[in-house]
């Protein structure tokens, strides 16, 4: 295996904000736009020649600047992201796209915009329901985003550009699904931490470079085999903490599948949309496949998605994680646990502080006890 794609190297490369590939892209005159929520169609930015960069905190726990703005009743993940926005770490961004993902996220963006205004700022308003009216509204929102990008960056986005970007994204998605296939194997050929690393790199690197890397990783892992005590599915709130997955896997809990918005939920597509208008297709696909608890009247689909992922990977149990004060995942996890347990799938709800190393001991104990419960 080449040195730059070993599991350790992948995780190391995904553990930095920025990085060589991003620097090269910027040095060549490329512009980078930050976004936070999976409801943001990356294809629209890619079609404009902009690099969509998904904001992350990577387990960072420094929050003093953010705490002066938000409060201890706000989720620590959002506060960590805000901290990185305010301390200049994200100054490489040429713009920001806000979405109404949750109450904490909206607060994070408002403070970020106010205290350290990026050159470009756009609020992409995503409906909370899926019906004929909201599909039309979301399409309008994407039209507005397209116009805002065009006006600010002086880049027209034609339907042809959009089709090209969509085709590329579909190709990458299909390859990420292949990577998921490697986890479905028994024993798995790709660890949960590696899969999360790939997903993090996908939303940070220029698409061509990432696709090349992904091809190499897929080719190199085909015969790999990872052993552990139990096969787990990890689902829940925004989790970009590679260290958390590594800690769980060190205990023998192989994260063979996930329902994380930095993971499978970011690339999994259920719906099929084809038509003459690429923006309309994009709007329909993003809204229909938005498997996030911020959506309403859609719980059954979220549950079905987890069931499907659990079945594919033949998991022994499900770990449902959320950050303290995360209402949307906190409540959804309570319901998911009841439903999964009723179906005979053991489920553990893990509430945690984002990125807190001091919390890791408690998390280890609980995961260990859960693995014992699975009689593994």
């Amino acid at each position, binding site marked *: 295996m080449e040195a730059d794609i070993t599991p350790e190297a992948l995780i190391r490369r995904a553990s930095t904000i920025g990085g060589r590939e991003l620097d090269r892209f910027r040095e060549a005159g490329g512009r980078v736009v930050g976004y936070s929520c999976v409801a943001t169609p990356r294809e629209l930015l890619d079609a404009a020649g902009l690099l969509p960069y998904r904001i992350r905190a990577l387990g960072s726990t420094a929050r003093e600047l953010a705490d002066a703005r938000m*409060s201890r*009743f706000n989720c620590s993940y959002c506060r960590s992201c805000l901290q990185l926005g305010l301390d200049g770490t994200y100054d490489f961004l040429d713009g920001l796209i806000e979405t109404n993902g*949750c109450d904490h996220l*909206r*607060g994070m963006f408002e403070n970020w915009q106010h205290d350290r205004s990026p050159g470009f700022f756009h609020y992409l308003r995503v409906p909370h329901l899926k019906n004929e009216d909201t599909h039309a509204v979301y399409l309008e929102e994407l039209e507005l985003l397209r116009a805002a990008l065009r006006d600010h960056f002086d880049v027209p986005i034609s339907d042809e550009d959009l089709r090209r970007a969509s085709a590329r994204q579909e190709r990458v998605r299909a390859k990420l699904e292949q990577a998921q296939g490697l986890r479905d194997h028994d024993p798995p050929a790709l660890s949960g931490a590696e899969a999360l690393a790939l997903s993090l790199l996908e939303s940070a690197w220029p698409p061509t470079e990432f696709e090349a890397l992904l091809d190499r990783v897929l080719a190199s892992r085909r015969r790999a085999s990872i052993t552990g005590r139990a096969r787990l599915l990890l689902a829940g709130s925004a989790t970009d903490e590679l260290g958390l997955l590594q800690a769980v896997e060190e205990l023998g809990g192989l994260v063979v599948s996930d329902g994380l918005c930095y993971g499978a939920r970011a690339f999994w597509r259920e719906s099929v949309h084809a038509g003459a208008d690429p923006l309309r297709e994009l709007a329909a696909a993003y809204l229909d496949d938005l498997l996030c608890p911020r959506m*309403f*009247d859609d719980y059954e689909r979220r549950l079905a998605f987890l069931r499907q992922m659990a079945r594919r990977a033949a998991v022994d149990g499900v770990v449902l994680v959320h950050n303290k004060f995360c209402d949307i995942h*906190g409540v959804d996890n*309570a319901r998911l*646990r009841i439903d999964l347990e009723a179906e005979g799938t053991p489920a553990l709800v893990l509430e945690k502080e984002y990125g807190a190393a001091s919390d890791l001991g408690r998390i280890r104990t609980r995961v260990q006890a859960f693995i014992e419960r699975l009689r593994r």
Partner: protein
Amino acid sequence: MNETLHTPIRDGLFDRLVQLADVITALPDQLSDEEVAGLRRVLPADTARAIGAAFEPYLRRGSVPFLKLAARHVQQARRARAEGRKVILMPFNFPPEVILIFRSAVPLCCEVITTLGVAVLEGAGERYWDEATALGLPDFLCSSSTIELGSILSSRDFRPDGLVQSTAGACDANSKVHEFVSLHLGIPQFFIEKPADSSARSRAHQRRYFRRFIAELERFTGETLDEGYMRQVLELANEATDLWYEFYDLHKFTPCPVPNLFSLFSYGTRFTSWGQRRAVDALRAMTDLGRERLERGLYPAEEEIARCVWLYTGYYFDLWGLFNWMESRGITYLHDALSLFVPIHIDTTSKETMLDGLAEAVFDYPMTRTMGAGSMSLSWIEDMVHFIRDLDANCAVFSGHHACKQTWSVFSRVRDEITRQTGVPVLCLQGDSWSRRITTAADLRGQLDAFVGSVVARKRRRAARRRRRQNMFKTDS
């Protein structure tokens, strides 16, 4: 054996409130001091304290109609099934008149039931919160809804026929816990989406969403809205709206002639009964009493020291120990973000104008309007700066209800801007507005006292000295 021993105990929040409601509605409209004293002796301690707060002689005449209104809101839901009507449980940020325009449905406001429960029932609703968390719901949800919903989830309480979901995008805690109840108990949910800005485009979307919502309710109730009946309800709502503006204006006088508790009662009225005769009666009683006190120059303390606008919610678990105590110390609770609901006059010309008016009312309702706005902080700042100036407030208080994550996420900006634009000091408290477990009333009183004594009163004295000096210069010249 005594048969009553075998009667199953209905100890849900709603059922316990119904029992108290039966006592309240049986009371005469005019109560003497002796009757109030007798009543307090027979009621449990927590209930007696809350009822006592509302029955203080200086506000009793305005309180009785409100307490009867609240009692009838509960009784109306209890009777509904026998009358062939459906009970729709709705969050506080939804106008009850939208349900009342249906002959076959009655609204029940979740947060009002919780508030009544924590304010007047022995045990302050804590057991229902525990029921909810025992199911695995997180302990950082909002007690305002979770206490009542916890009681429903226990399956030992009244079960509504349907739920309104109107908080998505304005409050995650509220919207998610309602969804949980719907899924857990199989109660149908009706959604109304709120576009995240107030542009003309968004308002047009809202009108479309609202019609979809109404169509779903029509299917659920099996009733097609009747224009004549709608008009009847909305004309009563408009009557209440006119009175509210009169009620609001009374707060502009110094000292404020309107007792502190009436601010809470005004939104209790809005959130349960707008569109019913009893809302008009309750508001009229409060407004009349306020006007009379203005004419007689009455105020509960020797002087009014602090005129507070509460920036979001208040604290509701000890009415006597907080609302009444404040005014006994010269601290006026002018309004909070919930009582500043700014009702609109609905055009009753046609069914379409009425539906448009109701869609507008939903759009601009408390919390939805600010926390569901394109910018929470800007919308909140704009509203509060306006009200602080309009009501001549000299301080502001943020209750810091810990479940309001959306307000907490932008509060520091709001505090800075309010102080910069209006010059009034802002106190930030922390606690749970519906639970005494987090910060006690005694602790809150201590913090309010210190703030008013060391910041507001001192500022006021400095301003008075400055005015005196300016007057002296004017006299000299």
